[in-house]
């Protein structure tokens, strides 16, 4: 038994050394999202945007008198990694988290933040479920898939006067979510979804699916997925002689899409926020981003930037980092950002989802 006690004491001693944490004099903010792997490029953009905002705040003297320390973590776009990252961030003592990128990551991770009582603002997870679970400190600065799918379906039925559409998705929380909302709205309006099918994320040859679309007699295709599949899908549709419209969500809003489909792409309709990048107020941000990271800001960078600014401002206004107070403050008023005025509803969603329809014109995205 003597040995046992020795071991126990030693274990405690070692543990105490490990567990000993130095006094904090910074405010830690977690930045989480996919940064490596296939989605790494698009996922890094909002994190960099947030980073930029935090740098600006630090330059101005920080918040509540504290310098802000960004703790950036890569969830690799994988759900289980996201849980691990979330637990790490909680353990690292972050007071709030901006992230994650993929809906599939935000969903499980937000449970961890919820339990730990940490404010989370996602700049890009559009799956409705993210804010549907009654977590009062989970916020979303972008639109929801149901809003997006809804807008797209109404546009397809009302403006394009389509009655028969094939709906294809990439089987992810995002893609399938948006596709299902599209189908629901479209059918509710009296339209007919002639085909509803999912594609594996690594699949790039869609000819068989396209044949099935043609067989179903669809007039147009709604694509719930990302640009890397959306581009080839569009090209192959056109090669197969399909002339109908090609609709999609924000996942295909990326310069890479245009590189793939070319300048002559026609009848492409994408739901996305209004053209924030073209506004005068975004210019300094875009310039600073390019200067810092040597790259043009991607579609979601600006959301990351706004999320950080709004979060820090709310902390400043609340005068504390306490999650309940910060959440309350966030809900209580309207926030100014590059993406327009943001007001959060009880769920943590934006009250006013401003999705507009974009199209490709002369080799660039343009509001229709």
């Amino acid at each position, binding site marked *: 038994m003597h040995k046992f006690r020795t071991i126990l004491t030693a274990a405690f001693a070692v543990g105490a050394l490990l567990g000993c944490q130095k006094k904090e004099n910074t405010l830690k903010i977690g930045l989480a999202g996919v940064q490596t792997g296939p989605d*790494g490029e698009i996922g890094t953009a909002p994190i960099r945007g947030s980073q930029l905002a935090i740098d600006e705040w630090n330059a101005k003297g920080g918040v509540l008198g504290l310098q802000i320390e960004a703790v950036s973590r890569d969830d690799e776009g994988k759900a289980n990694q996201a849980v691990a990252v979330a637990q790490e961030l909680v353990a690292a003592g972050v007071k709030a988290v901006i992230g994650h990128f993929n809906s599939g990551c935000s969903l499980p991770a937000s449970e961890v933040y919820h339990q730990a009582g940490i404010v989370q603002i996602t700049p890009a997870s559009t799956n409705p479920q993210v804010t549907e679970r009654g977590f009062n400190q989970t916020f979303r600065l972008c639109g929801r898939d149901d809003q997006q799918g809804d807008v797209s379906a109404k546009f397809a039925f009302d403006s394009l006067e389509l009655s028969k559409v094939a709906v294809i998705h990439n089987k992810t929380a995002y893609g399938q979510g948006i596709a299902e909302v599209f189908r629901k709205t479209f059918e509710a309006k009296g339209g007919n979804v002639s085909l509803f099918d999912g594609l594996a994320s*690594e699949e790039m040859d869609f000819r*068989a699916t396209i044949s*099935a679309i*043609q*067989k179903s*007699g669809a007039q147009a295709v709604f694509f719930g997925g990302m640009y890397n599949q959306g581009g*080839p899908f569009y090209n192959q549709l056109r090669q197969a002689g399909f002339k109908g419209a090609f609709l999609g969500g924000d996942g295909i809003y990326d310069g890479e899409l245009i590189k793939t489909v*070319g300048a002559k792409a026609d009848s492409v309709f994408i739901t996305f926020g209004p053209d924030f990048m073209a506004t005068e107020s975004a210019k300094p941000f875009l310039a600073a981003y390019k200067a810092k990271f040597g790259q043009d800001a991607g579609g979601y960078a600006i959301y990351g930037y706004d999320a950080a600014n709004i979060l820090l401002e709310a902390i400043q206004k609340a005068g504390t980092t306490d999650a309940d107070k910060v959440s309350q403050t966030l809900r209580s008023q309207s926030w100014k950002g590059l993406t327009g005025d943001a007001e959060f509803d009880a769920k943590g969603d934006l009250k006013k989802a401003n999705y507009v329809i974009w199209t490709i014109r002369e080799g660039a995205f343009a509001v229709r």
Partner: protein
Amino acid sequence: MQTPPNPDSGALLFSQMLEILINGLARGSVYALVALGYTMVYGILGMINFAHGEIFMIGMFAAVFALGAMGSAGLVAVGITLPLAILLAMALSAGFGVMNERIAYRKLRGAHLLAPLTSAIGMSIVLQNFVMLSVTKGKVDFPRAVAQPLANTTWSLGPVQLTALQAVIFATTFALMCGLFWLVQRTRLGIALRAVAQDRTMASLCGMKVDRLIAFAFALGSALAAAAGAMVAMYQGVLRFDSGYMIGLKAFTAAILGGIGNIPGAVLGGLIIGLTEDLTSYTIKSEWKQTTAFAILILVLWLRPRGLLGERVADKV
């Protein structure tokens, strides 16, 4: 979920079935080309070359690199650049194949099954990440100006629409397969390859440089995979560092299905897998095509453990 086909569109349905057949065969012939590489290496070494899918991916990138280099040099005539790019891609991939053999396999010949398999898995991770780190995490577009004209040219053969792109794929695949057949079955080199596959000691007693012949088999398989890669890149329009994994797995499935080590078997297996997938996509749902492909594999292995055309070789005691 499926809308029932229009009763009066029987003719349309028929032509679409033919189209599915063509699409499935195009996909299948690509699998077949890649499967040949697996089968050759397995036939000669009894090892699964797990990095073969990555060689295929390297071939995709190499083709675009070659087109880019020619583009920079001002050479844009598709009729010249495309064949040249495919050849260059084949050469570069062959080099990668040889290097792969040299580093990850040669020392492990005759070792326990697990060792070469593991090093091959390691090699495939290395190659994939090398391309990701050195080229891009995102996608690369196959130059549209090269692929589009081919894709937009369609020929009607009776009720069937065949694009020039598909014709190129069929023609190249067919030519390469015939070339391989001729090489393996009709030439001295082919005899030597088969001899090495059957009895390495006797082959070296015949004066054959076994190491070089094995490296040659790797080069050959890699070149075929690169040709397939170039065509797939053209066909689907984009390529990514992880584009090789699934095709590699499918092609490997095809090789096993046909009876690994057996060249006609690999072709047959590739076509079957390709057709199965497209038929599943068309008649059931795209969602289930992987499942049906693997279900067929398991079924075949269960009923015929040597694959469809595999030979029964007596186990030595």
